[in-house]
């Protein structure tokens, strides 16, 4: 990979990020609205108290002043304070980030692995009963809305069978520490994670299958077989690596969205992650929080897109020269 290629991609990513920073500020100020008026409706505040709140929230200068203030803060990695909780946005995001990374990270990993495996099995023997079975299954799960699937799993496994907790990420009554605490938390993870995994594995499976079906037509596979390689070796060494290319892009792009969480599934399982934080911030409305969340989400998408570009170029030499 040439330095020029890498630096070009890097500059592109940085440019996008700079645009996001500016856009992010104005996006939330297009709609006129005064958070102080809404947040403190019916609180019987004096005029002085309301003025003080506007000052605290940084709403008292002109838009340009506020923009400058925002840039200076950002340069210090300060995303401001949440209107609703009064805590710094960074700490609020930090609190919510871990549950989301665990939930969406694990489920993305699982759905990738299982989905790709299913795609390989289905695509390698197109038309077989396995292909039909797997493809129908993945099509069905892919078509299911995740909140609906989540609700079904919750009712079946948590309410009726009682095997898993109904919601949350840990047991308030528990005194477990160390490894047993980890296990307990894993127990809480099962249902939301299973929901997301099942809901999203179809995407990988379908892409992998069709990609593999395409690759199977290629001359180099005929050559590989002509060399006398076993079927499994042909699949593993020649077909799958080439068929994986579009899946790699998909994985990288989807990992970019890991941080933005899964609003529906997080709210069904009362999972206090970033998706829920976004939902609350929109309802409040909590501008600094929304601003911070959008910035973090954009940064993560930009970063993983960059990674996808680079990985793709590494895996497929044709991209580098194009």
């Amino acid at each position: 990979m040439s330095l020029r290629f890498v630096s070009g991609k890097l500059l592109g990513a940085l440019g996008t990020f700079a645009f996001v920073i500016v856009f992010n500020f104005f996006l939330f100020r297009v709609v006129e609205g005064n958070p102080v008026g809404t947040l403190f409706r019916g609180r019987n505040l004096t005029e002085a108290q309301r003025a003080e709140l506007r000052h605290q929230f940084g709403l008292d200068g002109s838009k340009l002043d506020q923009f400058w203030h925002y840039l200076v803060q950002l340069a210090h990695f300060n995303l401001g304070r949440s209107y609703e909780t009064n805590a710094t946005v960074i700490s609020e995001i930090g609190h919510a980030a871990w549950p989301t990374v665990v939930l969406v990270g694990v489920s993305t990993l699982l759905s990738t692995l299982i989905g790709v495996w299913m795609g390989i099995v289905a695509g390698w023997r197109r038309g077989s009963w396995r292909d039909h079975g797997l493809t129908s299954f993945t099509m069905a799960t892919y078509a299911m809305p995740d909140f609906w699937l989540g609700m079904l799993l919750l009712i079946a496994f948590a309410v009726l069978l009682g095997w898993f907790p109904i919601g949350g990420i840990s047991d308030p009554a528990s005194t477990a520490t160390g490894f047993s605490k980890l296990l307990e938390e894993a127990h809480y993870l099962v249902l939301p994670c299973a929901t997301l995994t099942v809901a999203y594995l179809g995407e990988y499976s379908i892409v992998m299958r069709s990609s593999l079906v395409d690759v199977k037509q290629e001359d180099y596979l005929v050559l590989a077989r002509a060399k006398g390689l076993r079927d499994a070796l042909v699949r593993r060494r020649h077909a799958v690596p080439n068929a994986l290319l579009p899946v790699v892009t998909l994985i990288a792009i989807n990992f970019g969205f890991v941080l933005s969480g899964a609003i529906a599934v997080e709210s069904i399982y009362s999972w206090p992650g970033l998706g829920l934080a976004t939902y609350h911030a929109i309802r409040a409305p909590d501008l600094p929080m929304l601003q911070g969340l959008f910035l973090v989400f954009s940064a993560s998408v930009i970063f993983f897109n960059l990674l996808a570009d680079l990985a793709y170029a590494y895996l497929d030499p044709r991209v580098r020269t194009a």
Partner: protein
Amino acid sequence: MNRTRTIALAAVSCVAGLTLLAGSGLAAKKATVTLTVGLTQDIDTLNPAVGQLVPDYEVWNLQYATLTRKSAKDFSTIPGLAQSWRSSNHGLTWTYTLRPHLKWSDGVPLTSADVAYTINRARKEQWLNYTAFIGNLTAKAPNPRTVVITSSVPDPRLPGLGDTYIVPMHIYDKISKANLTKYAAQDGVGSGPFTLETYVKGQYWKMKANPGYWQGKPAVDEIVFRVFTNSDAMVFSLQKGELDVIDNPSPASFKDLQKTKGIVAVQGQQGSFDELALNGYNGKPPRSKKFSSPNPALADLRFRQAIAMAIDKQALVSRAYGGIGVAADALSPSADPEWTPKIPASLRYDFDLDKAKKLLDSAGYKDTDGDGIRNLPNGGKDIVLRYLIRSESIYAKPISDFVTAWLKDIGIGTKLSVYSDSQLTVEIGKGAYDMFTWGWTPFVDPDPQLSYFQCDEVAHDASDFTNYYNDASYCDPTYDKLYAQQRVELNHAKRVAIVHQMLTRFYRSAVYDVLEYTPELQAYRTDRFTGWLQQPAKIGPVILTNTSPTYFNLKPIKTSTSGFSAVSVGGIGGVLLLVAALGLLGASRPVQARAAREERSTKPGR
């Protein structure tokens, strides 16, 4: 392939075993009496000076004792930290005597200095949650058990100080004014029946009984408040017995809970109401061109009365609100129903479309162009009212469906548009509306809610449209005069009479059609605790009430364990995993064989 499976098998078995162990380890613990509460909202900060969410108040009510309390029955003032009091100086000065041997939960003595400190500092620094109650008060502590409080104006709320949470001076004194808003107050030092033990953001918080509480140690050892973002899941947890009481189930599941044995479903009334507000701006106070004007017909009392008569509140309750709540007449300015006047039948605007039509006819609003919509007098335009709908309310749209149909029936057109709360606040301030539906939840003292409808509170300075509360744009000098009177009236019966007079007047103006008294939906189990208290008695909710007296009053029915059974969950989970492991073990051999066969096969894929 082979090795991966073995590792996976080993891992699953380990997990299964350890889960079982973890489950049995937990089983040994439980002996405490735990009450588990399900809520749909988290707390923001536990700092009583600045917190703003409803669950915050529950924590403060439990953690901070107040000088006087409000009775569960009717909010009347009863002794708290102060065991007695007397007034002097025409009711401007009150001298309270504290109970002996009061202590903070960390062992530090609680004295009159803490009380005086809280009141004086909150007044000086204008603490958000305090100013409305102590803005005019000055406190002195001549000796450790005596507090002397002087009000600069006659204050009918005194001697009641049930909203003023006394904070520990030995902790708050270390926090400067600049840092106060940032202080999260998780110190857990209090003087109430329970104090904060742990708080896990977004998940739960736990409060433990305070053995040094002046009324004695509560029968409940600890309270766990769990936060649910899925109210249906919360209802399931209540039905399964993992929770003892819940707040805010969805209206649909509330109806199921009403039919469930062993569960009491409560429609708790504490003064909240929804209204259909009209834009009653009548030129007072004068304002610039930046403001929008209401439809001219709204300035006519008869026109507004016709609208009031076109609304079938009973039908709204049973159909738009799904049978939940109570049809309303007058505005309720307080959680205490005593302050809400009964509107006599002769003064009420009962639902009567024919009467409404006749009234409009006689007032000169006729459909002159024959399009089904009445016109302004003297060949004026069609009367089409701007009707603003809240996107945040599940009821706003169904209500508008009924209201627009009724208005159409009497020949009044409407133009609907949807706004978020934050946008709607601005539109109301600008006067850019003819009608909208929203609601209020009043305090216990009627003063704040009454103050919102003074002329001063009609938006009139265009530099900030949202700085005002009067969302009916109603201005009536007589109302203002009565408001000023009730504010300083120390005779309770006389004050109630003035308030009733004000609210009847307000009702008659027909600018603010209060549609329904909206309840707080709650449900509790009857198998574990007795002593659930509604505040106010008979009609109020059991939790998230004004002063939260339920918790101290609860007694366990049997020596019950925690509502949240980790044991069964852990145990069953472990068994499940073991079964899975065994299944994998059984399946692994043929799988291996198959894999080996495929490795050897040279048959092309198709």
